C-alpha cells in the first residue's frame, strides 16, 4: 500500500502562502460566499426534507435558534459545546494541511476521555485542582498523541494509507476506552461508568455563567496553533508536505519525521479536547458513549479552508447547531442524528461551490494579444 494518498483537493488547500492579495475586498466577498453558501444550501435542503417528513421547517429552525442562542442556558451550552469542536477542528487542520487524513479522532478522543474520567476523581482530590488539571491535561494530550503513533509510523516508514489505519485504530480505541470504563476505571456505582469528578474539582466557570474556563484555554491554544501554522517554519514545512510530498523530500524536509510529528500534534489537540470536556462539562464517562466528533467536524474544517481563524466562527455556529439541534429535534420527534445529515449535505454543497468557483477561475477572460496584432499585420 505504498501509495501516496491523494492530497486535499485544490480549493481546500490553505490560503496563507498561496493568496497573494489577501486585502482585496473582492476576495473577501468571495470567501464569505464560499463559506456561507453551502450552509445556506444545507438549510434549504434540510428544510425541504423536513417538510416531506411532515415537520414544519420554519418552526424547526426557530427552535434551533431558541435552543441554541435565545435561551440563556442554550447560549451558554452552545459556547461550551464549541470548546471540543475548536480543539478537534484545530487538530484536524494540522493534519489536513499536511494532506494527512486523520480520520481517527473518535478513538483518540475517547481514550483520552476514559483516562481523564477514570483517574480524574483521584487526581483532583490528591492535589490542588489547578495542578490536577494540568497533570490530567498533559496526560490526555499524551494519550491522544500516542494513539496516532502507529498510523503515523506506518505511513512515514511504509507509505501505508492512513485513511484506513486511523479508522481502524479509531474503532480499536473506542473499544479499549469502553473496556477501561467497564473495568479498571469503573466507579463505585452499579452502572457502567467511571467515578465522577467532584464539583470543586471541575474547571471554574466564567463569572455568572455556566461556561467553563476551558473556552479561554481553547481559544488561546488554537490561536497559538494558528500562529505556528501560518508564520513559523514548521507551518511552512507542513504546507509544503501537504502540497507535494515528493517536492518536500526534494526540498530537504525530513518527511517521515514531519508526518509523525504532525499526527502527534493532531492527536494531542484532540486529547486536550477530551480533557476540557471531562474537566469542564461532563465530569465522568459513561460506557458506550461516543459523541462521534471525528467525522462531524470534517465539513467544518473544510468550510474553514483549513484556516483556524475561519474555524472559530464556524465552531460557534456548530455549537449552536448542536445544542439547538438537540432541542429542536426533540421537539420535532426526530433523532438528533439529523444533524449528521445536515453536516453531510453541507460538505457536499461545499464541494460543489468549490467546483463552480474553480471553473470560473480557470476561464481566463483576457483575449490573446497576438491575434489582434496579427490581424493588424494582415489588414
Amino acid at each position, binding site marked *: 500500500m*505504498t501509495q501516496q494518498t491523494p492530497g486535499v483537493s485544490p480549493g481546500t488547500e490553505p490560503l496563507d502562502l498561496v493568496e497573494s492579495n489577501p486585502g482585496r475586498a473582492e476576495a473577501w466577498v468571495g470567501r464569505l460566499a464560499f463559506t456561507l453558501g453551502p450552509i445556506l444550501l444545507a438549510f434549504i435542503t434540510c428544510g425541504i426534507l423536513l417538510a416531506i417528513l411532515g415537520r414544519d421547517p420554519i418552526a424547526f429552525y426557530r427552535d434551533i435558534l431558541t435552543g441554541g442562542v435565545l435561551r440563556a442556558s442554550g447560549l451558554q451550552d452552545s459556547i461550551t459545546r464549541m470548546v471540543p469542536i475548536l480543539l478537534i477542528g484545530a487538530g484536524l487542520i494540522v493534519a489536513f494541511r499536511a494532506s494527512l487524513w486523520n480520520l481517527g479522532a473518535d478513538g483518540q478522543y475517547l481514550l483520552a476521555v476514559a483516562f481523564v474520567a477514570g483517574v480524574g476523581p483521584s487526581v483532583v482530590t490528591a492535589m490542588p485542582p489547578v495542578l490536577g488539571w494540568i497533570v490530567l491535561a498533559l496526560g490526555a494530550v499524551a494519550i491522544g498523541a500516542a494513539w496516532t503513533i502507529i498510523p503515523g509510523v506506518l505511513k512515514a516508514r511504509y507509505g501505508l494509507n492512513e485513511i484506513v489505519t486511523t479508522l*481502524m485504530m479509531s474503532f480499536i480505541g473506542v473499544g479499549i476506552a469502553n473496556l477501561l470504563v467497564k473495568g479498571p476505571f469503573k466507579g463505585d456505582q452499579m452502572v457502567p461508568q467511571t467515578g465522577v469528578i467532584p464539583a470543586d474539582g471541575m474547571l471554574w466557570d466564567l463569572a455568572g455563567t455556566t461556561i467553563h474556563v476551558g473556552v479561554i484555554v481553547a481559544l488561546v491554544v488554537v490561536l497559538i496553533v494558528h500562529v505556528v501554522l501560518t508564520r513559523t517554519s514548521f507551518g511552512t514545512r507542513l504546507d509544503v508536505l501537504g502540497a507535494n510530498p515528493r517536492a518536500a523530500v526534494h526540498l530537504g524536509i525530513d518527511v517521515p519525521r514531519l508526518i509523525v510529528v504532525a499526527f502527534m500534534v493532531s492527536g494531542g489537540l484532540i486529547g486536550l479536547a477530551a480533557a476540557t470536556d471531562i474537566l469542564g462539562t461532563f465530569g465522568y464517562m459513561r460506557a458506550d458513549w461516543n459523541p462521534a466528533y471525528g*467525522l462531524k467536524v470534517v465539513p467544518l474544517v473544510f468550510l474553514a479552508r483549513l484556516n483556524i481563524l475561519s474555524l472559530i466562527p464556524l465552531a460557534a455556529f456548530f455549537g449552536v447547531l448542536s445544542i439547538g439541534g438537540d432541542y429542536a429535534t426533540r421537539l420535532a420527534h426526530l*433523532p438528533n*442524528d439529523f*444533524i449528521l*445529515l445536515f453536516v*453531510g449535505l453541507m460538505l457536499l454543497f461545499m464541494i460543489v461551490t468549490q467546483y463552480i468557483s474553480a471553473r470560473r477561475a480557470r476561464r481566463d477572460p483576457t483575449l490573446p494579444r497576438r491575434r489582434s496584432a496579427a490581424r493588424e499585420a494582415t489588414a
Partner: protein
Amino acid sequence: MDLLTPEFLTALLAAGIVSGVPLLFASLGETFAEQAGILNVGLEGIMLTGAFVAFMVALATGDHWFGLLGGAVAGMAVSLIMVVFCVRLGLDQIVVGIAIVLCAEGATSVLHDIWYSATYPRLPVVPDFRVPFLSELPILGGSLFSQPLIVYVGVAIVAVSAWAIRRTRWGLELRAAGERPDSLDAAGVSVVRTRTIAQLLCGALAGVGGAYLALVGAGTFVPFVTNGMGFIAIVIAMLARGRPWWSVLGGLLFGISLSMATALQLIGVQIPVDVVQMLPFISVIVVLVVFVRDSRLPSALGMPYLRGSR
C-alpha cells in the same frame, strides 16, 4: 481442548460466513472501483443505505429477494453521487466519500426512527439452501454448504468477476483506467464510462452486502448497523489487489473474527463484547503490518481524470 469440537467449529464457520458475506460483496464491489482508480471511502454509507432500503422493501413485500434487489438499487443510487461528483466532475473522492457516510448515517437513522422505532419489526428468517450430499459432511456440511441461496450466488459472481477482469474487454479497460487513464483515453476508450460502470457495479454489490447484513445477519435494521464493515471491506479490496477470490478469503477471515463471540459463548467462554468487536480491526492492522510490502495499488487510485489537463 474444547475449542476444536465439531460443534464449535461448525458454529464458528457458520457464523463466520454469515458475518463474512457482506464483506465479500462489499469488498468485491470495492475491488472493481479500486481497479478503475476510485477509492470509495463512502462504502460504509453505501452499505448502510443498502441495508436500510432492503429492510424496508423486504418488510413491505415480505420477500427477501426483493429486499436484496432493493439494496442493490439503493447502493447504485448512492454511487451515482460518486459518479457525478468524482468521476464526471473530478472532485476529491475522499471528501465526497466522507459526505456520503455522514448523509447516509443521518438519513437512515432519522427514517428508521420515524418509521420503525415504535414497533421495531423483525424479518422472518431467510431459509438456508442445503446443498445436496455436501451438506451432510461434518463441520463443513452444516456451515459452508447450508447457507441462504444468495451466498452461492455471491460466490458465482466472484467467479464470473475473476474471469471478467482477466479475460474480457471491459476487464482490460477497467485495469487500464486505474493504472494509466490517459493511455486508455488515447486508446479511444472513454475513461469516464469505464469508471462509471465500475462505480455503479461497486454500489450495487455493496448495497447487496448491506442488504444481506440486515436481512440475514441481523434480521432487522438498527442505525449504524454496519459499524465499520465498509472500512474493513476497503482494506480487503486493497489487499486483494484486483483478484476477486481474495474477497472470499478476506471476507471469511474477518467474518470469523467478527463472529468469534457467538461461537465462544457456545463453549462457555465469556469474552467481553468490546474485545470481540475490536478483533476485526486489530486483525486488519496486524495484516496490514505483516503484508505491508506486498500490496500494490493501481497507480491512478484516487486521482480524477480530466482530459487535456496536462
